[in-house]
């Protein structure tokens, strides 16, 4: 069965420090890969997506993600975190017919 794993439930990072959020998936072929961010009481905003091609993907708000086929991973990174990056982050996997499967999410807290 397809699955998406986000191993870290909660991450605390200092403002200005780097951030990396982990995502692993289990599927027989390479799916489409996404990262979404959700602020409290709001819907999901698309940060970036990977369909094919270059394995390093640039997104909005200074985020990037790297697809590693050998590790079935799609980790999200940001070099310098801002207080406004505090939110919940979801990794999602789609299979062409766009039925997204989401991980359980990682909550990011930014301390001053």
């Amino acid at each position: 069965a397809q699955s998406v794993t986000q191993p870290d439930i909660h991450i605390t990072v200092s403002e200005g420090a780097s951030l990396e959020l982990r995502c692993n998936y289990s599927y027989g072929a390479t799916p489409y890969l996404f990262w979404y961010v959700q602020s409290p009481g709001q819907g999901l905003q698309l940060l970036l997506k990977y369909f094919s091609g270059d394995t390093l993907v640039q997104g909005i708000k200074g985020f990037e993600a790297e697809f590693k086929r050998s590790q079935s991973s799609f980790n999200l990174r940001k070099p310098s975190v801002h207080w406004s990056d505090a939110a919940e982050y979801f990794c999602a996997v789609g299979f062409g017919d766009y039925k997204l499967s989401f991980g359980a999410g990682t909550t990011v807290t930014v301390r001053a």
Partner: protein
Amino acid sequence: DAGVTQSPTHLIKTRGQHVTLRCSPISGHKSVSWYQQVLGQGPQFIFQYYEKEERGRGNFPDRFSARQFPNYSSELNVNALLLGDSALYLCASSLGTDNQPQHFGDGTRLSIL
């Protein structure tokens, strides 16, 4: 440009009642999907509609149904509400063609008493 809009934003119902949630996709988008997000979890896929036809269905009971209208807006209906149906219901739209991501609305918060 307007994003995906959902109504109502909040709703309180009691067990056994019926509820209808509404979604208007981004202009030009022909595909609408519905997701259920229980507190503390990631969204779970319920339905996807494309060009008014059901394109996919998640592992939800028959109490859940949906439809898409000629203007591509959509309704999600839930009958015989249970306490466990309390959740944020998210609607997402996309162009429906390959390599196009889904864009989400802010959701409807449904509370069952």
